[in-house]
Structures are given as C-alpha cells and as structure tokens.
C-alpha cells in the first residue's frame, strides 16, 4: 500500500479577480475584427465566464504577454519560483529524517522546459535526491497529477519514497487577440498553482497517512481525442472540439466511467473533484446523486484559485484531508484532455 504522507502547495504571481479582468477582457473583444453579432457573442460569453466573485493567480504582466518568447520565459520564471517554494517545504519536512526520494514524477500541461521540472527540483533538494533517483517529466493536462499518482502507485517496493509534483501556469496562455469563444473560456477559467505530494509505504512519516486504496483510470482516446486540445497562435491556446456539445459530452464520459461504483461510495461527504467548471460539476453531482456538500471543497477552491489544472485536485485533497475523520474516505475525481476520467479514493489513517 502507498500512502500520501504530505501535500505541499504554493501559488506564485499576482492575485487578480474577475472584477479586475472583466474591463480588460471586454476592451479586447470590443476591438475584435468580427461582425457585430460575433462581437456580441464574445461580449456575452466573457461576461458569463467571469460572472460572480472569483480570483486566480497569474504571472506578472499577464496582459502584456504577446510573443512566444515572453510567454515561455514567464512560464520558466514562475515554474522556478514554484519549485523553490515547494522545495523549501519538502526540505524542512524531511530535515530530521534520512529520507531520500527514489522517484520524482512531475507534470505540467502549460509549458515545456529542458531540463525538465524534475531536474530543477532535484537541484534544490540536496541529499534528498540521489544520482540514481528516477526522474520523469510528464506533459498531460488536468488529469496529470492523478495519472502520476497512479503511475507511482504501480511501482515496485524499491520506490519507497516518491514525489509527485504538479506545476501549472495556464495564465501564460491568456490570449487577448482571439476571436474564438473557447479561447476566451480558457482565458477566463484558469489560474496558476503548484503542489507536491510525498508518497511512501510508511504511514508514520510526514503530516498525514492517506492510504491510496483505489485509482481507476478510463481513457476514451478513440472517441474523445478532439474534445479538448491545443490550438496555436503566438503560443498554445485552449480549444474545444465543439463548444456547443462540450459539457454534455464530458458529462456522458464521466457518467460512463463511473458506472459500477458502489452507490454508498458516492454518498461520502468528502470529495476532491477537479474544478473543471462549476456548471459541469453541479450537473454531474445531481445526476450521480451525490450529497449537496460534496462539491463544497471544489467550489471554494475554484472561487479562490479558479481552475489550476492538475494542481487543483491536490490542493483540494489537502483541504479535505484536514477535515475528514480518521478511517474516513475521500473520493477523488478528475477529467481532462484525452479524454480521460480518473476516479478513486484514499482512506485517511491519520
């Protein structure tokens, strides 16, 4: 059995609200070279996507990133700051131990570095990392952190202490010149965040012991490949295959993937759900008959940090672990490009 012994989190950059972004985004769409009808659609969509009080962290100068070089540099700078913050927490937590990590698996969907995140983290961890530590850098999407947990969970006993790290900086993708509704949905939905998880086979280590009892992975590549994918302008852009049917398609894939789950498991009040979008989550929870408070942690996170891709579910899990009782189950659910759905649960032992 693998246990989650600690979850470290960080946010870097500037905290901005919907209220701050709205006039800037509206100014951008009001000069878009499109028909009046299309422009009204963009205006209505931006207002809808930014409705209510919500915040997110963004890289400095986020509204002035106009080139590949600027965006990639902003990603690298913010990634390094995130890794510095996480490494300080990891180093402090393992200070009086002889722990060295056998495996480091990182994930990011919003940039590409060489050397990768794992090497940059290793360079900061001193003797917590050895020359034979396995270091792997994944490029996935919103399901990246759960995939990394699943991967680590399947390693053999030589992987006694492992780190799974998610660094997501989707604010570097914000594109003010787009005339596509789905790109603006991405502009409005995402925020930056990072987290690291210490896993081991020893419950007494670290701050907590969450037994990773189940992680079920369902991929729908044959039919769901085009649901979410990159588009390209001066950098990557978030694109949907069909924005009119997206929510319905995603609900269907998730519902299919959760068939066979014990109804009693769905009734747990503790859920860490990737905040893919509040409308999607709320529809899903009604369809699955989940308790009303099952979404509270995800909604709270979404309002404070927006959708921070694969980092979000780790933040939410940490929050849920703080309030769950010993012996209690915390359900995990995430979904993302591929199309992938990952469902599972951990049991809090302490």
């Amino acid at each position: 059995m693998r246990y989650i012994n600690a979850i470290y989190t960080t946010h870097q950059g500037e905290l901005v609200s919907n209220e701050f972004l709205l006039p800037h985004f509206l100014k951008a769409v009001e000069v878009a070279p499109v028909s009046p009808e299309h422009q009204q659609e963009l205006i209505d969509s931006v207002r809808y996507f930014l409705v209510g009080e919500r915040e997110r962290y963004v890289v400095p100068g986020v509204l002035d990133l106009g080139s590949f070089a600027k965006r990639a540099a902003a990603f690298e700078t913010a990634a390094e700051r995130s890794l510095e913050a996480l490494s300080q927490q990891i180093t402090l937590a393992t200070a009086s131990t002889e722990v060295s990590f056998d495996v480091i698996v990182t994930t990011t969907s919003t940039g590409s570095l060489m050397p990768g995140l794992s090497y940059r983290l290793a360079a900061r961890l001193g003797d917590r990392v050895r020359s034979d530590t396995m270091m792997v850098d994944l490029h996935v999407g919103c399901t990246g952190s759960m995939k990394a947990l699943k991967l680590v969970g399947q390693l053999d006993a030589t992987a006694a202490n492992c780190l799974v790290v998610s660094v997501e900086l989707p604010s570097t993708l914000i594109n003010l010149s787009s005339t596509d509704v789905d790109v603006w949905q991405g502009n409005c939905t995402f925020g930056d965040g990072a987290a690291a998880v210490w896993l081991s086979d020893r419950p007494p280590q670290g701050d907590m012991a969450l037994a990773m009892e189940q992680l079920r992975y369902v991929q729908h590549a044959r039919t769901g490949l085009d649901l979410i994918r990159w588009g390209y302008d001066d950098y990557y852009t978030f694109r949907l295959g069909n924005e009119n049917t997206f929510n319905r398609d995603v609900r269907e894939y998730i519902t299919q993937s959760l068939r066979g789950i014990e109804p009693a498991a769905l009734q747990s009040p503790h859920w860490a759900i990737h905040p893919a979008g509040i409308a999607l989550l709320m529809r899903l929870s009604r369809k699955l008959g989940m308790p009303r408070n099952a979404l509270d942690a995800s909604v709270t996170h979404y309002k404070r940090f927006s959708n921070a891709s694969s980092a979000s579910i780790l933040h939410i899990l940490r929050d849920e672990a703080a309030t769950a009782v010993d012996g209690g189950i915390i359900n995990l659910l995430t979904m993302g490009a591929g199309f992938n759905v990952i469902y599972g649960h951990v049991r809090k032992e302490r």
Partner: protein
Amino acid sequence: MNQEEILSWARSWVESNKLSKDAGDFAREKVSDIITQSTDVVEFTLDLEEALGMEDTGFDLDALAPKFATLTFAELADEIVKLAQSRKA
C-alpha cells in the same frame, strides 16, 4: 409552461433564494443583475430545467446562460418558450 408561468417560477426562485431586490418590475430586471454568483446561475438553470421537465432529455439551458447578462427575466421566459417549441417541432 408558458411565458407567464416561467416568469412566476423565476420570481419564486429568486425570492426563496433571498436574491430579490426590494422594488422594481421583476420582469424587466436583467437576470445577471439579480443572480450574480456563478453557483447561483447554475442552480437557477438546473432547477429551471427540472421545473420544465427537461432533465434527461439531452437538452439543457446552458446555451442561454451567456445571455443572462443582456436578457431580462421576461425576455428569458420568451427565449425558453421558443426553445421548447423548436424542440417539439
């Protein structure tokens, strides 16, 4: 439901969720001026679909949600009636 019934339902929903302003013509209020939080927008949409018997039909009101910023409650009720009629046709 017809337009009046949808409007009446919306007024009740707003009042029971304690979102109503004290004065004014409800029908002429913009939806987004009364329902201001994203979670409330979704709850309103989902509850309305249930009231209209739309759940599990494969059709939902998500497409109308972006228009809440510009539609009044009366205009929203009109749009829903038109949508429902076009579905039957």
